[in-house]
C-alpha cells in the first residue's frame, strides 16, 4: 500500500517535558486519518512537525514521499495546513487573502486569482469576498481558512482541531469538505477531541495520549477492542450505585465504571445476550431499583476510557485521577 504520511519513532521534548514519546503512524494515500486525544496529548505537535514547522529531533517522517527533515521545501509544495487559529489577515478582504496566499504558493498571479474565485464559491463566501475578514463571523473565517489551505491543490492536508468552536452549520460544511477532498484522492490528517468527529470522518483513527499512540485502527476495530455491548444503568442515589457494583461486576468482562454524576454505571458485557438477563436478575435480587436500563454499542469514548483511564473531554470519571483543560 502507498502511504502519504509515514512517521517512525518521533520524539520531541520542550525542555524537561517530553511531548512526543516515540510516535509511529502510517496513513494510506487518499484516506482520512484521525488523531484523537485530549488537550496536551501531542496531536498539534505531530501536525506541526509534519507540516515542517517544527524540527525533528528524533525519528523519521515522510509526507507525500518526501523526507520532512531534509526535503522541507518539497513537502511544503504538496501540503495544506489549517491550524487551531483561523490564520487569515483580518485587515484584508476574503478575496485578497486567497490571492495573497495563492501568490505566495507560487501559483502565478493569474492562477492565484482564478483559484481564489473557485474557493470563494466552494466555501460560499462569494458575497463576502470584498468585505474585510475582520467583519466575518467565526464560521466564515474558518471557511476562508480552510479555503486557504486548499489554495495550491495539495496532496495532503492537515486539519488541527478544525471544528473546535464552530457552529453546527460550519461544522457540517467542514465535514462535507473533508469527504469531498478524500473522494478526490487527497489525504487528510485531522486532529480532534471529538470522538463523534473521528467516528464520522476517519477511515482510521489513532488514539493519542501523553505523547504516545495508545491504539490504532478503524473505528470499528477500536470499538471491538472494548468488547461487546455496554449496559448502562441509572439509579436514584449514589449509595444505590455503590451497591449495584457487586452484581454488575459479576456479569461484566471488565470492572463497572461509575460516571461523574455518581448515579450512572456502565459495564462491558460479553458477546451474546445472556449477560443482560443476568444483570437484571442480579440487580433485582440485590433489591436495587433501577431508574434507567439501557444497552448500547460501544463508542469511541469507551475505547478512550478503556485505553487511557480518562475520557476525552472534561467529564471526570470515578476511576480517573486526571482532568483535562
Amino acid at each position, binding site marked *: 500500500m502507498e502511504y502519504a504520511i509515514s512517521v517512525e519513532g518521533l520524539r520531541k521534548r520542550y525542555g524537561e517535558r517530553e511531548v512526543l514519546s516515540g510516535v509511529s503512524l502510517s496513513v494510506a494515500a487518499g484516506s482520512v486519518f484521525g488523531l484523537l486525544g485530549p488537550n496536551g496529548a501531542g496531536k*498539534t505537535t505531530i501536525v506541526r512537525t509534519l507540516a515542517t514547522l517544527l524540527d525533528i529531533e528524533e525519528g523519521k517522517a515522510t509526507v507525500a514521499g518526501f523526507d520532512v527533515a531534509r526535503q522541507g521545501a518539497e513537502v511544503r509544495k504538496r501540503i495544506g495546513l489549517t491550524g487551531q487559529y483561523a490564520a487569515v489577515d483580518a485587515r484584508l478582504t476574503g478575496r485578497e487573502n486567497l490571492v495573497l496566499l495563492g501568490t505566495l504558493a507560487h501559483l502565478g498571479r493569474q492562477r492565484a486569482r482564478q483559484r481564489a474565485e473557485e474557493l470563494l464559491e466552494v466555501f460560499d463566501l462569494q458575497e463576502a469576498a470584498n468585505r474585510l475578514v475582520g467583519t466575518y463571523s467565526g464560521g466564515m473565517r474558518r471557511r476562508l481558512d480552510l479555503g*486557504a489551505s486548499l489554495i495550491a491543490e495539495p496532496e495532503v492536508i492537515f486539519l488541527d482541531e478544525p471544528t473546535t468552536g464552530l457552529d453546527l452549520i460550519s461544522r457540517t460544511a467542514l465535514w462535507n469538505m473533508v469527504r469531498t477532498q478524500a473522494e478526490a484522492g487527497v489525504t487528510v490528517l485531522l486532529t480532534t477531541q471529538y470522538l463523534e468527529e473521528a467516528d464520522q470522518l476517519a477511515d482510521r483513527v489513532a488514539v493519542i495520549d501523553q505523547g504516545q499512540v495508545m491504539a490504532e485502527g478503524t473505528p470499528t476495530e477500536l470499538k471491538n477492542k472494548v468488547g461487546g455491548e455496554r449496559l448502562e444503568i441509572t439509579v436514584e442515589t449514589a449509595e444505590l450505585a455503590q451497591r449495584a457494583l457487586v452484581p454488575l461486576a459479576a456479569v461484566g468482562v471488565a470492572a463497572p465504571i461509575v460516571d461523574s454524576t455518581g448515579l450512572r454505571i456502565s459495564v462491558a458485557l460479553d458477546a451474546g445476550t445472556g449477560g443482560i438477563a443476568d444483570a437484571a436478575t442480579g440487580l433485582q435480587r440485590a433489591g436495587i431499583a433501577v431508574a434507567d436500563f439501557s444497552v448500547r454499542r460501544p463508542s469511541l469514548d469507551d475505547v478512550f476510557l478503556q485505553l487511557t483511564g480518562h475520557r476525552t473531554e472534561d467529564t471526570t470519571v470515578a476511576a480517573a485521577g486526571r482532568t483535562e483543560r
Partner: protein
Amino acid sequence: MSYVLTDSAALFGRHLTHFKRLPQQLISVTLMPIMFVFLFGYLFGSSMVVPDGKYLDYIMAGILAQMMLANAINTGVGVADDLNNGLVDRFRSLPMTQFSVLLGRTAADLVLNIIALLFMVLVGLLMGWRPHGSALSTIGGVALLLLLGYTMTWLGCLIGLTLRHPQVINSVAMAVTMPLAFLSAGFFPINNLPGWVSAIASWNPVSAIVTGVRELWGNPVGYGDDPSWPLRHPVPVSLITLIVLLLIIVPLATRAYRSAAAKTT
C-alpha cells in the same frame, strides 16, 4: 531566487493595503513629532539657546530621529501580531521564501517612513524651520534618517519575534529607544551636560546621526568648540554604525523568525 522578489512584493503589497485602509496610521506616527515641533521649537524655543542659530532649526533633526527610532515599536508589534494569530504558521507551511516575510514588511515600513518624513518636513517648513544646504545634501539628510528608520524596523522585527507579547514589546522597545533619543544631542547641546553623561551622549550613535543630518541640512550643530571624535565625522560614523548594525540585526531577526515560529505550541 527570483521568488525572493515576487514573494516580498506580494507581502509588501499586503502591508501597503493595510496602510491604504488605515491612513490614520500616518497620524499615529506623526502626532508626537508634531507636538514636539510645536512645544519645543515654537513655545520653548525662545528660552533655549544653541550656539550658532535658531533652536527650531537645531531640534528638527532630533525630533525626526526620534520618530525613526519609534519604528522599533510599531514594527515589533506588527510582527508579533502575525506570529500570535497564526499567519506566520501559514507562511511557514507554504513553499515561499521565508526571508520575504521580514523583507516585505520592512520595505513597506520604509515607504511609510518616507511619507511620514515628507509630511514632517512640510510641518517643519510651516513652523519656520529652514534647511540651508544644497538640495542634494538636504535629500542626503533625509536619506540618513531613513537608514536609521530602516535599521529600527529590523530591530523591531527582532524584538517582536523574541518577545511576542505586544505589551512587553512596547516597554522593551521604549526602554531601548528613549535613552537613545534623549541621552543624545537630539534635543539639546551635550557639552552642557555633566562630564560622564556628556561622554556617553557624544558616543551615542544617535548623536552622530542628528549631527550628520544637521550638517547636511546646514542647520546649527551646536557642539561648541571641542566636539568629540564621532561628532567631528558625523556622516561617515553614522553610515558605518547603521550598516554594521543592519549586518548584525538582519541575520539575528531572520534567525528569530525561524525559532519563534518553531516555538509556538
